[in-house]
């Protein structure tokens, strides 16, 4: 089963490409009572120790595919199931230093049955999480 917190403990790590650390990734469960088509997901803001990584630039990986925000917004057939965590991929040269970080996530959802004046719904949660190496 998934962890209760939005950000999952499991999977928080730096991303290495060809021997260089280019960013970090973390797993998040869908903060909703339902699964949603990806076109209703409007990205995830990530803030680590006060440094904001905006939803416009972060990518989301689900079902073996990685989506930019523009791709998410048009993905009407792919879905984020409630029972699956998505991987948020954040670019940051050098990655995060090993140790404990304060991580805030803000997941942005577009819910068509709520008046547009109140959209998107932004669900945020902050926790401490640890980069092992």
């Amino acid at each position: 089963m998934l962890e209760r917190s939005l950000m999952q403990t499991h999977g928080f790590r730096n991303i290495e490409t060809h021997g260089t650390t280019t960013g970090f990734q973390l797993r998040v469960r869908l903060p909703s009572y339902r699964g949603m088509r990806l076109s209703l997901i409007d990205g995830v803001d990530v803030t680590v120790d006060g440094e904001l990584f905006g939803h416009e630039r972060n990518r989301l990986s689900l079902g073996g595919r990685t989506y930019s925000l523009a791709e998410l917004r048009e993905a009407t057939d792919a879905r984020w199931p409630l029972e699956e965590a998505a991987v948020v991929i954040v670019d940051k040269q050098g990655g995060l230093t090993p140790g404990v970080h304060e991580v805030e996530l803000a997941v942005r959802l577009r819910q068509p049955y709520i008046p547009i004046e109140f959209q998107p719904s932004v669900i945020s949660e902050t926790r401490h999480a640890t980069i092992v190496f």
Partner: protein
Amino acid sequence: MNKPFNYGVSLYSFTDDFGTVLTLDDAASHIADLGATGIEILGEAHIPGYPNPRSAWVDHWHGLLERNKLEATNYGCWLDTRLTVSRRMTAKEGAADLDRDLRLAARLGFKFVRPKIGVVSFDLVPDPIWEEAVERVLDLAHDLGIVICPEIHAPTPIRHPVVDSYINFIQRTGTRNFGLLLDTGIFQDRPLPHWPGETPEMRRDFLNGIKVDPDDILAVIDYVVFIQAKFHSITTRLEDENIPWERVVPALKRAGYGGYLSSEYEGARDPWRSLEQVRRQHALIRKLERDYDASAPVQ
């Protein structure tokens, strides 16, 4: 005529517990332990691999119903009419989504399908595509033995143009496969507590309760096919802090309602709190039903 209620629970009640501290098997066992007979689900929430569950899961579902002596009641789905940032869903696309959900609901044994329809205004007028989308699948619903039932949900009261439009649709088409689902949140007459982080400025008026008169049920009862028994908090003395069940239950009885009351707990999400809250609600409503029956004239 006084008919007994049927008692059920929606898995919506267990939001945040489901999939973190509660499995589907746990949930079904808790519902059976209440002496309830109905289980309600949300398709795109409680069916792994939605909309194409593996056949092994479908078999497991049917086994689960049989073991726990439960019947599948209502299946929730969505008409996500604001399909993308830049365009709305067409009626044809809406019908295709309904078609898919009706077939999946029938495969799992459900008798009711509630589409939650996207809105186009501040006062929750549903996207007008609903009418054509639903009309396109009415024959299918008939063949599958399913009643499609949009919900009457706060802040929309019973006496409202949206409800009139649903009733007009039933009268125009003559269908028996479309009806109203009442959400008892419309009867809420005391404010909800503020959610974590909610400031007075953020409060939306309807969260203070739209206080629909329970006797308004009588005007639409012929069209009501299912009831979601929405509630938020019941004390250790079995007092509901928001919903006036002592007026809602007698009104439903006088109206002759004999369908499901399907619990929808929507309160604080501390782990497992929902399980105890649902038990209290069933104890409370069953007591009110017994009290009514004891004092009502013999039919």
